[in-house]
């Protein structure tokens, strides 16, 4: 982006201050290269498109075949996204990862999200990276360290209250009440995107409200029901040879 002079910047700030939210959204759209890709004003290599997302090849990739998954609506950061949309984008990420494994002769992938400049977010349009990985490619190669138990507990303590709040769990009753409250249950077949697309997707309302739509805290299941889910190796999906091979590398 070209540098602005001090006056230009001031003038722009002034202009932005006086804009209505709609005008602001429009300006954002004009300024955002990914919005222009989504509206096809800028050409791109489209791998997948649906009502809510566009997946394209990154032209400045970390590795050949690096895919970007873009929500069609402009969101700058992940906390603005409605829950059903996040879920949808992850399903697409899963498909794109599978596609890379099957067609690019790679033996791994990373699904990667950067929230904030400090985390390496370079685009002003939220997106998910799906990066093909090869043995020894030296990408994202961070080493794990052993964390001291006390430190571990301090972190848990620091975050627990706020996390409970976000998950809709009352804070005064910590452990026992947790298990049932966040059930994604089967009876309503899917609380996923197409079921209720318009409302949650178009309004970037704050998270606590939207969360109720796909994760219903009212659905309470008996903890016992969890046992069949956890223990059945028979549910292991049949995958193509190549995916099994990748999974089998661990053994």
């Amino acid at each position, binding site marked *: 982006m070209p540098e602005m002079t001090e006056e230009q910047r001031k003038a722009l700030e002034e202009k932005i201050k006086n804009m209505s939210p709609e005008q602001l959204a429009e300006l954002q759209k004009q300024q955002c290269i990914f919005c222009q890709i989504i509206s096809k004003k800028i050409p791109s290599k489209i791998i997948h498109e649906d009502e809510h997302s566009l997946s394209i090849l990154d032209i400045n990739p970390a590795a050949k075949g690096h895919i970007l998954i873009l929500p069609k609506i402009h969101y700058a950061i992940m906390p603005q996204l409605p829950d059903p949309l996040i879920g949808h984008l992850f399903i697409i990420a899963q498909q794109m990862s599978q596609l890379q494994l099957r067609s690019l002769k790679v*033996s791994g992938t990373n699904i990667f999200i950067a929230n904030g400049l400090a985390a390496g977010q370079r685009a002003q349009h939220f997106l998910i990276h799906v990066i093909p990985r090869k043995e020894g490619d030296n990408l994202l190669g961070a080493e794990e360290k052993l964390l001291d138990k006390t430190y571990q507990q301090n972190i848990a303590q620091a975050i627990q209250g706020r996390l*409970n709040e976000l998950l809709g769990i009352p804070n005064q009753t910590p452990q026992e009440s947790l298990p049932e409250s966040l059930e994604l249950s089967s009876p309503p077949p899917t609380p996923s995107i197409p079921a209720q697309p318009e409302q949650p997707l178009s309004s970037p309302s704050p998270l606590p409200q939207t969360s109720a739509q796909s994760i219903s805290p009212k659905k309470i299941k008996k903890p016992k029901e969890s046992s*069949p889910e956890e223990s059945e190796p028979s549910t292991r999906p049949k995958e193509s040879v190549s995916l099994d091979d990748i999974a089998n590398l661990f053994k």
Partner: protein
Amino acid sequence: MKCDYCEIVEQKTNASILYEDSDTLIVVKDMVLTPGQITVIPKQHFTIVEMIPPKLLQKCSLLANKVSIASFDTLGIQGTNIIIQNGLAGGQKVPHVALEIIPRKENDTLPLQWQPKPLSEVDLETTFTALQDELKREHKQQPATPEENSQLQQPSSESTSQPSSKPKESPAPDSYLLKSLKRLP
């Protein structure tokens, strides 16, 4: 050898548990890239991300977002990464799929950044063709594999055939993956 995350699920390790329900767990593990890292683990053992039922992955992704927001609000950080390391080559250390939420600070020097490599027009085109060919092949042969996995909730007994057959013919919400496949360019 027992899977490390299955051991966490069975609560045989020291991981501090932040949240638990019938199919997921949020924990502070002892092996981390950086202090403050939090992990969302599906309880059932799935080795790589392709194997996890889409519905469960959706749920994990929402939990990861909440963890990310909570980290922002409480850990004094300026950013987060949410990462799924998939396959040995993808840096996956434990053969059990999980979502890592990694706190970030300005100049923390975590090597979670990459140097973009501009691709030549030819390279871009061949990669694009390879991906598209595979998409076409998938489209012809079968309705995307992920659907087969969607029998998360009741894998055994009563509803055996119901969840897996449903997405294929009905316009039920489950079939949106199918629908989106049909819309592929």
